Each structure stands twice: as C-alpha cells, then as structure tokens.
C-alpha cells in the first residue's frame, strides 16, 4: 500500500510502520468491538498512516464524525474519540457522553489525543463532569507524518503564525520531539547545521533532550549524515513567488491537501463507447498525488513547460504497447500480453488524468492575467523598480482582484526592496483598506510583525547583494533540460535551496557576509556517536542530509532539492521535512485575521 515510501534513500516506511504499530497497540487495549468518533481534521493525516482495513482488523466496526448532540447508535463495546487537544472539542465530547448515559450504559469510552495529551483538555472534561467516564486517556504521537518517499510533514498549518506572530514555540517543541523519534529509528544525526532563531531553539531542545536520554545509547547506525534546520523567515521571498513546476502549479491553482487534490470534474468525465454523454458529474474529482504513481513521479518536479513533451512521449510508449496485441500470435505471446494488461490499463488511466490536469493548468498559464502577474514578480525578483508604486498592483486593486494576490505582490516587492519607502507603503495600505475594507488594518499589522511587509529603515537595500552572491537570478534557466535549480521558478533560484546547496559545497564559510544579512544566527553542532557507529564511507557514496523547513516549504523548493539529489556530481541526497506544505496563498491566509471575511 505504501511501497513508495521505501523506494527512497531512507526507508520512511519504518516510520510509518512504527506509527501503525502504536495504533494497533492502542486499539488492542480497548478489548472488544469498537466505534471511532473522529475529529474530522485528523482523517486526512491519518489516511497517510493507515487505511480502514487496519482498523477493521482490530474490531473497529463503525466510524463517525465528531458532532455535538447524541452519538449515533452502534452495537459496540467501545467508543473511542480520536481528537486534537482542543477545548471546543472537549465540550462536544462531554455533550456526547452525557446524552449517551441516558440511553445505553454498557459502552466504554476512551480518548486518544493526537499528537499530545493536554492537561488543560482533561481539566475541561473534569469541569464538565465526564472525566471519570473514560477508561483510557492516551496520546498518539504523530509529529512527523511520512508524506512521500523523501518527504515528511507535521501538517501543522499554523506553525509560522505561532512562531513569528504570536511567539508561541509549541510547534518547535513538537518539531524537536519529532526529530528525537526520527533519531530513535534512524540513528543519531552526527552533524546539525541551522540558520534562524527557531532553528537555534529546535537544536537547543534536541541537545537537551538527548542529555535527558543519556545512559541509553542509541545503537543504530546513523542513516542521516547531516541535519539542516532552516527558518522560513530566513527566506520570505520564495513562497511568495508563483511556483512553476507541475506539482507546484497544481498546488497554486487547486490546492493539494494531505496528498489529495480536488479538480473540476468536466475534464474527467469518462465517456464509454456507444453511450450518449450522460450528465456530467458535478462533484469535484479527487485524486491522490504521490510517487506511487509512476508517471506522476516522473513529471511532478518538471517545469510545467516541459510537461507537455513528457506526456506526449509517454503517450507514444503506451500506444505502442497496446498495439503489441496485433503481434501476439502464439498462445504464449497472448498470455504475456494479457498479463501486462492491468499495468497498461493503469498507465493509460494515469496518462488520461495527467493530460486532463495539464490541459486545465495550460488554460490558466496561457492567460494574459497569469503572464502579467509573472512578469511583475520577475521584475521584483531581479530588482527592477522595486522602490516605486507599481502600476500593475495599482490596476489589480482597482479591479478588485483577490486580496491575497495583492498582498503576495506587495509583500514580494517589500522583501525584494528590504522594506518599502514610507510613502509607497502608505499608498498601498490606503488603497488596500479603501478597496477591501478597513478591518484589514489587522492583517496588514500581522504582515508587518511577520516581517513580510515593512517600511525601509535604512537606505541600504541588501537584497541585490544577496541576489548576486547567491546567484538567485539565472538568466538562461533551461526549463526543458535543467542544469540549475532556478528552473523551478523559470529563472529564480530559491534562496533556501541555494543556502542548502552552498552548505554542501563549498560550505557556509564562503558566504559569511550574506548569512549575516539574513535574520537569525547560523550555527553548527555535533552530536557524539558511540564508537563503532562511525560510518566507513565507500568511495563515491552519497551523503544524506535531512533538511527541515520550520514554518513551511513549497513544492517548488522540494523539486529543487530533488533535482540536487539527482545531479550526478552533487554527492548528496536530500530528505525533506517541514511543519507544513505551503504556497503563497495558504501561507498569507494563515497570517490574516478572519481571512474568510474577505473572499469577494
């Protein structure tokens, strides 16, 4: 089911198996038939760990969504609540339990908190007078969820806002815990590098936790050579830019959630032969996207302009394979052909799906609006006219384009200019408040707190220096046959990934000046390995680095790291971990106050 997790350099299936084992153990603690009541938010992340079949094997007979009122009737011995530790959920659970007692009396209640128990929640249950009704109160530690063969995510949406706006470091604590779990399974990571305040915090916590475990030596041969912790606020620019890889664009346009995307159904209607086209389905088509799908693994990280060619090549191969049937003469040949059929059918349907998606995206990327927006982004990133009011942004406001689009562009201009001139900033703010409503004062203040939007404090603009030193803009980005990571944004090389690349070779010492211009400290720590666990490296053997993005990572950045892993002479393979997969829109949205009130 999750074989794709074990294809990579590091077998992430081990992590998934460990998570499944814990789940089974918990289920077995509640002997007898059971029903699970789900905090709906958790079904997505849990889907990455287990299917219904696993639960069924452990006598889970019914599943419900957590809702206030009375629990649906079900003839089971145990009722288990799978919930996040949130107070409003406790109130609903209390309501459920209360109304239950009047009708049945023989059912046992349990709570499984994900990812951590919370004393405050238990206290709330106690206040409501239901704490005593629970036989088991446990926690299911799900910090890092294996998302793909080289990708781990905490699916912790509010991490950036909490860290940089509210200064709540809880997500960092979970990050450190998750990294400890990872080290318990994959060995101590000997080298830790980091850049940014949050990175420093996480590293400190890890080292402290390690001291607490002192005495129990980790005897596993280290799988990772290096851990790199990166604060999102070290590179605020990258998520603001429109991603131009296939997967990045799917996320920008339709949004990928827990590995699934919902698409407009029209393009996916299957017309059977000889059948009149029936009514088109109105429900969105939901597709799972991961490297288990051969074709998707091949094209996801390509620049979108190279996807058409890849699909047409694939189409020819598949057509040829189907044509083979005419050549199959002997019984043996026919048998052989038939045995390959299921695989070919799957390949065909995969090709059909991605052709449809590519057509949908093409409609958007060829539009004038998309082109104009991209042109302005690229002007900003190359430092053209970042110090004046931009006419395009002005026009977009006048046309009342979505506020998030405006905010993305204005923030980008601010970041590329190391802050906007007070006059320019005031002008934008005024136009935005007049057009979208004065209550957005709050959102604008949030963006300022997060450093995405700010007045220029010194006359010196660091960005051009950073851009030139790190080669953030490559003029001849090759979209078809890339030779540099800048292909993922058709010219712009993501700052975060450049830092990663330079760290591997020639090392951060070569860019001390630039590192000082970026916020937060940079550091290096070493963790002692027990003797005997030092790796004897074969000549030419690649090293493995785990890059952890604190506050979110985009699909385009992931694509760039995969590109580096595949480069023949890089000598480095990357595994990626993050608090949450983000794009400019979801990221800005997480920083808004009441984002739902502005969707016009």
């Amino acid at each position: 089911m999750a074989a794709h997790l074990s294809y990579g350099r590091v077998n992430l299936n081990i992590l998934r198996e460990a998570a499944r084992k814990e789940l089974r153990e918990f289920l077995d603690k509640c002997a007898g038939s059971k029903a699970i009541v789900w905090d709906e938010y958790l079904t997505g992340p849990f889907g990455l760990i287990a299917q219904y079949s696993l639960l069924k094997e452990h006598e889970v007979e019914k599943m419900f969504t957590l809702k206030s009122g009375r629990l649906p009737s079900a003839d089971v011995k145990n009722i288990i609540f799978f919930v996040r530790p949130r107070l409003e959920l406790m109130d609903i659970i209390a309501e459920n339990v209360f109304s239950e007692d009047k009708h049945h009396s023989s059912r046992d209640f349990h709570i499984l908190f994900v990812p951590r128990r919370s004393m405050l929640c238990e206290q709330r249950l106690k206040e409501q007078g239901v704490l005593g009704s629970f036989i088991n109160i446990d926690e299911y530690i799900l910090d890092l969820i294996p998302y793909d063969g080289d990708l781990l995510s905490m699916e912790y949406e509010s991490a950036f806002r909490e860290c940089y706006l509210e200064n709540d470091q809880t997500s960092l604590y979970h990050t450190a815990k998750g990294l400890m779990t990872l080290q318990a399974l994959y060995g101590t990571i000997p080298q830790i590098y980091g850049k940014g305040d949050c990175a420093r915090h996480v590293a400190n916590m890890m080292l402290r936790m390690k001291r607490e475990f002192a005495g129990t030596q980790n005897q596993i041969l280290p799988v990772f050579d290096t851990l790199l912790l990166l604060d999102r606020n070290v590179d605020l620019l990258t998520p603001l830019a429109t991603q131009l890889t296939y997967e990045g664009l799917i996320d920008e346009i339709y949004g990928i959630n827990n590995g699934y995307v919902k698409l407009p159904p029209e393009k996916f209607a299957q017309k059977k032969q000889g059948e009149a086209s029936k009514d088109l389905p109105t429900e969105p088509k939901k597709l799972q996207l991961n490297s288990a799908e051969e074709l998707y693994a091949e094209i996801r990280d390509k620049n979108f302009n190279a996807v058409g060619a890849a699909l047409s090549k694939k189409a020819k191969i598949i057509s040829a394979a189907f044509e083979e049937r005419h050549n199959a003469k002997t019984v043996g040949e026919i048998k052989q052909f038939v045995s390959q059929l299921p695989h070919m059918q799957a390949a065909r349907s995969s090709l059909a799906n991605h052709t449809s998606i590519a057509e949908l995206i093409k409609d958007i990327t060829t539009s004038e609006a998309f082109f104009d927006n991209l042109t302005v982004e690229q002007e900003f990133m190359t430092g053209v006219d970042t110090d004046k009011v931009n006419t395009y942004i002005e026009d977009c406001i006048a046309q009342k384009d979505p506020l998030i689009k405006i905010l993305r562009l204005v923030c980008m201009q601010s970041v590329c200019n190391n802050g906007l001139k007070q006059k320019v900033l005031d002008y934008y703010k005024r136009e935005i408040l007049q057009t979208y409503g004065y209550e957005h004062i709050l959102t604008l203040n949030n963006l300022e707190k997060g450093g995405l939007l700010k007045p220029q404090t010194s006359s010196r603009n660091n960005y051009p220096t950073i851009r030139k030193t790190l080669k953030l803009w490559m003029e001849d980005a090759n979209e078809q046959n890339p030779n540099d990571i800048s292909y993922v944004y058709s010219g712009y090389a993501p700052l975060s990934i450049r830092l990663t690349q330079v760290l591997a070779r020639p090392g951060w010492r070569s860019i001390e000046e630039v590192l000082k211009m970026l916020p937060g400290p940079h550091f290096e720590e070493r963790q002692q390995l027990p003797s005997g666990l030092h790796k004897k490296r074969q000549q030419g053997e690649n090293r493995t680095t785990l890059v952890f993005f604190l506050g979110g990572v985009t699909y385009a950045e992931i694509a760039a790291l995969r590109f580096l892993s595949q480069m023949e002479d890089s000598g480095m393979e990357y595994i990626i971990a993050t608090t949450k997969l983000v794009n400019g829109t979801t990221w800005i949205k997480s920083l808004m106050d009441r984002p739902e009130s502005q969707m016009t």
Partner: protein
Amino acid sequence: MTKSKADEEEYWNSSKFKAFTFDDEDDELIRLKESRQAVNSIRPLVDEDDDEDDVEKVSWSGEPVGSISWSVKETAASNQRTDREPAFPKIPTDTPSLSKSQSGYSLSSLFKGKTKGGNFQSFTDTFSESSVRLYAPELRKPKSEYKDYVSDWSPEETIQRLQQGKTAPLEKFRSLQDKLLLLDFAVSAHDGNVITAVLIYLKRTLSKEVLFRELESRQTALRHFIHYLTETKDQRLLLELLRALGRTEDVALLQYKEHLSIADENKRRDFLKSCLSLPFSAEDSAHVQDHYTLLERQIIIEATDRQAERGGKVEIFQKFPRRASILNMPLITTLYYCCFYHYTEAEGTYSSPLNIRQTFKISEKQYFVTALAARAKLKAWLDVDALFTSRNWLGFTRKKSPLSFHRVVDILQKNSAPTRVLQDYVGLVEDPDTRISLAQKHKCHDIVINTYRDMKDRQLLLGYRGKVGRGSAEERKIDELLNNQQIRWKN
C-alpha cells in the same frame, strides 16, 4: 552571472523577460493535444470498470475505497440507513463548526472552547492516577519516569512530569522564588502546554502587580501569558497587562479588533467611535477615523435608500433594485454604489460621490475607475463621455483620462458597451499596434481601416478586406481607399 558591467546595466534597465517561455506555446499545445489524442485513441480493451484493477480503487469523490475519510462517510451513512431513529441529531446551523484551519496542538488551539464559568480555577487539582494511564512507546521513555513513586518533586522534576502528561501538584510551591523557578524551568522546557499550566497557577496565586512585573523580565513566558489571555478571551486582564507594559499600540489594535464581533450596525458605529481615542500609530489612527466615518454614513444612506426603495417613487430603485445592503461594505464599493444610485447629487449630501471622494481623499484614478464602471453598468454613455471631457478645462475637445485608454476600453467592454461607444475610446489608444489589436478584437473596423490608411500600408489593408462583410460599408470604404490615386502607399 558573469556578464560584463555594461551588459548588466542594460539588462537591469530592460524589463523584458523571456522566462517561462511563452514563445513555443503552440508547440506545447500541440504536444498536449498529441497526448490527449493518444489517450482517446487507446480503446479500452477491457471494460472500464476493471480499469484500475491493479491500482487502488477510488470512489468518484476520489477517496481511495477503504481510506479512513471515505470509510467514515460510509459507515456513518450505513448507520443512518439501517437505524430508524434519527441517528445524527440535526445540528442547528449556528453551532460553531469545527474549524479545520488549524492542526496540531498549540496554545492557540488549546483554548478555543466556550469558556464556561471559572477559568480553570481548580486546575492544579491532581487527577486521580487511575484514570490517567500514560501511553508512551518504548523508544521515547526517558529513564526518569521510573521514579514515579516519589512524591516530593523539585521544581525541575515537576516540570518534567507535567511534560510527560503526569500529575504533579503545584500547590506545594508557595514562595515567590519557588514559583518563579517553576516558571523558568517550564520556559526552558519549551513546552507551551506546561508553561501555560504554570502561568495559570501563578495567575491564581500572585497579585497582578507582582505577576506583571515578573513577566516583564521573562519575555517568553509573557508571550505565552498574552496568548493564553487572548484565547480565553480575558480581554480585561489582557488590556491591563498591555497597558502596564506600555504596549499601547497593541492595546489599541486589540480593542479595535473587537468591532468584528459586533453585529448591530449602530452598536458597531458607537464602538468604533469609542476607538478613536485609542493610542494607534498616526497612520492607523487616520484609517480608524475613516472606518468610523464610513460606517456612520452608510447607516444614513442605507436608511434613506431603503425607504426610497419601499416608497416605489424613485425610478432608479425600481429599475435596478438594490441587491444587498451597503452596510459594512468597503469604501470603494460604497463609492460605486453612490455613483450608481446618487450620481447627480449636489456635493452637500452624504451620498454624493464627489463628497465621498473629498472626505476620504480617494485618489483620482480610483475615483475615475469606479465612476466609469458604475456609469457604464447603467449604460449612461453620456455620463461616461462627460467623465473624459469634463476635465477638459483648457477648452480642447480632446479627451483626457488619468487611466490608459487601453484600460478604459477594458472596463467599458466588461460592462458590455456597444461597438459605437467602444470605438471612440479604442481610437484614442496612442500606440498604433495596441490600437489595431484592440480594434480588431472589438470589431471597430473604421479604426483598423483608418490606421492602415495612415500607415500607408496597402498590403495590410488589402488583407483586412477579407475580414469585413461582403458588400458592407467597410468593404466599400476599403475599395475607395485602394482606388484613391492620391495616397502614396508604401507597399
């Protein structure tokens, strides 16, 4: 990036980018088409239903059959089917739906509930051990856990126990010094849940003055405390704290934010009025003043117009009934509304567009775009025309606009202006290439023909002849031009 200096200069000064190439888009489209054709031409050899035999089965909604979220729906549905009694009580729509926007567990997510009665007053009561069984997998079990039977824990041990989700009475820490030690250990553990737990104990057992003073030198704990107060909606104490810290702008914004939860417009207006004296930054202060003034006006306009609409005597409200109330709409939307319903009003009234423009210092461009769109929507072409000529104070008859005529044409076209109106403005686009492409797009034949004539381009004119209707006036005009001996064609 190894360009010569001169090259680079030139490069930065130009703003043309070829990145994300659109040049070979035809080529790309053809390739996609190839792929589409291939997909369609491979006839399914077996029935479509067996299509995905070897891959995961996916229901139409896309969840793999057997995935958890799919199964939740399935079993819930089957439950409803088989049981006669209404298994899922109908939930009134105003029940707070579970927000899906946040995952994980964090300070912000801990307190989102309805606070009922006392704020965790009895928090430090110990839970009975029996109801609380720790479930920690082997690999994460630190050895300190085996000391469970000890009951006299130091501040450090207490924090560790809390971190592991176990009981540890806080009451025994009575001296200020012990309490602060507890807090400092909690902070250095970085566990937000534990920090908050200690803070709640401190809040209950220390005077505000002492607590505020001690928090001031402990920034992390302070931030957690602020967050805790925000989430439990203890607005009063929070404002007190922020004032004590001298964080006046935060106080102002926090108070201002409350207006969002006031539904009644009059109460909201009064509340905003009370915000005016808050210590905002200079620029925010001006915005909040505008916000108040706007709502005040909207309330007056809404009352008047609703009456006018009901009275049935004002033609414009009969012809174009109002779709929604103007209350709480943004300023520009309000301006649009007033340009639509109150365009000709004298400058003295609240609903006069000119008055609004002045009061809120709306930029010329914004005003122009908004008025143009509103009048075009009403097909008041004379008003549209006047917008351009009215600023013709030098006595010229030429039309002027703070907006490029290209954009003007866009706006008019979006409001389905007829060709005869459009062509007036297409003709004013200065750049001949843009003008021609706009004219062709909107079928303003005269402009195309005249432009080609002015360019003395016989070939293009000849080519365009094929695009106009046979025997049409345009065709005759082209023929006349082509036969005109006095024009010196360049080709």
